[in-house]
């Protein structure tokens, strides 16, 4: 079989200072296939793709696209010209510009000085219709669209450049399951139109559903490329982690006690309309539902980050209404926010400072910080949840996603909470690190903490939680106990069918 390879990358090496991010990696993609690229965080997937996209310069190796060798130094622009476009996790959109302006942002004034608005809008509309999203208006402001629709605009932008190769970097991490299904069908459609797709995701189900072949990277090295139909999930996972994966969801031996937080008919802002639930000591309660169902907003209101309009919150037998996160934390209620980069971490500050931020009381006296005690305390804490880091005074930025998330968790462990809310604790985290995070959650529950986990991945709710509350359009659509926790039941409640 003489295969037609549209991408041939060979012996790619890339160093960051002394760190070898990629070592002699080959990567070959056939024309018109959907090729998945997987590996744990830090395996080098993103680095490889950034080299392909011209955002990073390789130290060694060569890149051949459609028979043409890429120049030694590349830029994103030169690679776009060669037909490669990347849809990054953080969209490269200008939020204040319109849909049409964003789609044609790099070719708005081509062939003249002035923009032909009419043809620009018309062309944008055609691109959106091609994707089956004709209802997105070309003159809508991008920042006001939903995340899923913004992603569509991003895809339309790449198609408008006549890209032959589209790279999706974890496109579904920010989508709900119905949106994910839609995206996957768009990707299939693009494939049928002859576009070559490279697909990066941590969600194995999706890879099996959509990809033709899978390439596995580990620790900056190439492991293998396999045909999707010829491999099992387990085999794939052990290729990724280089060992047999221990149980994804470890056992928990927590004693479930009395109700410690009871929320009754909570209303807050425009999103939260009548939410009632309760959580017990030692219990792990899942919050399922579509993105935008009001889960995050409910928790923020209870935590005192947003205002409560009406309703009752009973916390350890007392009627409370926390006015600020400070008050909530002082009373032992913690919230690990969903977006660790925007809300959880001080990226350019030290790991140590991040770890002790919510528990500075423990390491200072009369406002004087005891650096020795702080270091010891942070080290012990990070070690207890097996965080990998170079030096405790390095920037939080220097860590992979999974380890960054552990720093955030460590910060909250240090605060000694009695009730802990975790909003999407494993988003963008690789399989190995996920298990570690589940262990931390188990440890919390076992020590008597009531844990609330918001998760969009249903497998996580099912595997991890004792009970789940499903939210839909700002209300509790229903509650599912352990015995009935199935994807079917969760979807039905979330979708209202």
């Amino acid at each position: 079989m003489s295969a037609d390879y549209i991408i041939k990358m060979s012996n790619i090496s890339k160093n960051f200072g002394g760190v070898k991010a990629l070592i002699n990696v080959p990567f070959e993609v056939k024309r018109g296939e959907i090729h998945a690229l997987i590996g744990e965080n830090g395996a080098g997937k993103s680095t490889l793709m950034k080299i392909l996209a011209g955002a990073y310069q390789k130290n060694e190796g060569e890149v051949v696209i459609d028979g043409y060798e890429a120049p030694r130094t590349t830029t994103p622009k030169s690679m776009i010209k060669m037909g490669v476009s990347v849809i990054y996790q953080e969209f490269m959109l200008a939020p204040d510009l319109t849909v049409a302006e964003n789609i044609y942002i790099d070719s708005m004034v081509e062939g003249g000085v002035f923009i032909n608005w009419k043809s620009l809008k018309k062309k944008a509309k055609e691109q959106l219709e091609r994707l089956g999203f004709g209802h997105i208006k070309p003159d809508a402001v991008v920042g006001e669209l939903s995340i899923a629709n913004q992603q569509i605009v991003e895809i339309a932008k790449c198609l408008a450049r006549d890209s032959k190769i589209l790279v999706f970097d974890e496109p579904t991490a920010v989508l709900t399951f119905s949106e994910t299904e839609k995206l996957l069908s768009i990707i299939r459609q693009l494939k049928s139109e002859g576009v070559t797709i490279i697909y990066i995701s941590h969600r194995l189900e999706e890879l099996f559903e959509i990809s033709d072949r899978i390439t596995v990277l580990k620790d900056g090295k190439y492991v293998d490329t396999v045909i999707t139909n010829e491999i099992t999930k387990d085999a794939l996972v052990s290729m990724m982690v280089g060992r047999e994966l221990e149980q994804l969801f470890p056992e928990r031996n927590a004693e479930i006690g009395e109700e410690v937080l009871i929320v009754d008919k909570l209303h807050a802002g425009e999103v939260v309309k009548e939410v009632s639930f309760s959580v017990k000591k030692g219990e792990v309660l899942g919050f399922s539902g579509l993105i935008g169902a009001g889960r995050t907003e409910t928790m923020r209101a209870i935590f005192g980050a947003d205002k409560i309009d009406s309703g009752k919150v009973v916390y350890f037998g007392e009627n409370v209404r926390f006015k600020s996160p400070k008050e909530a934390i002082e009373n032992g209620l913690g919230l690990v926010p969903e977006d660790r980069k925007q809300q959880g971490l001080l990226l350019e500050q030290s790991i140590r400072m991040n770890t002790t931020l919510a528990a500075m009381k423990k390491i200072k006296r009369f406002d004087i910080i005891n650096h020795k005690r702080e270091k010891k305390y942070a080290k012990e804490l990070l070690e207890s949840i097996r965080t990998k880091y170079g030096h405790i005074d390095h920037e939080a930025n220097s860590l992979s996603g999974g380890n960054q998330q552990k720093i955030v968790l460590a910060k909250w462990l240090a605060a000694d909470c009695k009730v802990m809310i975790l909003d999407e604790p494993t988003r963008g985290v690789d399989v190995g690190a996920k298990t570690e995070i589940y262990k931390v959650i188990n440890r919390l529950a076992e020590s008597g903490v009531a844990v609330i986990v918001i998760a969009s991945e249903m497998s996580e709710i099912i595997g991890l939680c004792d009970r789940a509350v499903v939210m839909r359009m700002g209300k509790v659509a229903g509650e599912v106990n352990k015995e009935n926790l199935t994807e079917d039941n969760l979807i039905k409640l979330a979708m209202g069918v």
Partner: protein
Amino acid sequence: MKQSLKNLNVKDIFINYNTYFIFVLLLIISGILSEHFFTAMNLTNIALQQAAPILVAIGMLFVILTRGIDLSVGSVMAVGATVSTTLIAELEMNYILATIIAVLVGTIFGIFTGILVAYIGIQGFVASLATMTIARGVAFVLTSGTPVKVDNGTLNNIVSRDNFFPIIIMTVAIILLFALVQRYTGWGRTIIAVGSNPTAVQLAGIKTKQFVLSAYALSGSLAALAGVFVAARSSTGSATVGNMAELDAIAACVIGGASLLGGKGFVIRAVIGALVLGLIGNVMNLLSVPSYPQDIIKGFIIIAAVILQIVTSKREKTV
């Protein structure tokens, strides 16, 4: 991904201490250019002259750390200078008490800006622009536009050689104090954290607004004290004191490696930054460069110093 600790080579040392290298380099150049540079009198002069800019730079640094900026410091210096001298000249107040009151008035201006920024939500640039105008106006109203003279034996005590130059001693003490405060107190730590990611800090249960407010208050009080220093040197309180001092303070912080995006910067380095600016002026004076060309040269030296900062601190991030 792990970063190895051992590759602390020459380049890294240079990157970590670039502000100091710039300073030492400038000292050497100054020594070569002028034989009068390394004389006791000249060095004392530099110290007396730079005491005020250093204090202002320290206050500015803490504001910049919170992602803010304080344009009012120059005008607040004028308030400090005129309030202290007016109290001494009109009410025959003891100069120490007058200094304390001047600092308190400066603090009030700082608190005013701080409230506008932290609680009303006005951007630091705009809020302090307003305070800048107000404070300058207050200084002019207070003096009716004529500088206030104070007699010898009052305010000039704090610059006198016989008392071992109190303002130099105070400045050194303040530098050390705030260098320690930044490194060893929860307050200093929180100021950096707030500038780094206010949302995360708030969600960690810290009331960020109080910290932002306190940074502006500190900046106001140090600026007023700096104004008193300037008044003491000439025994005159003028409403024009501190003209453009805010820009020198910002430049000092930036030369010292502070980021206007917040969360990054160190007291000692901002002080060095202020000294760098002072040295440039001093050397050009010794070489009798006229004042207008001095400004041109100074501007380019600031650009060069900052470019050096950017170049030496740029490292490709790992993923």
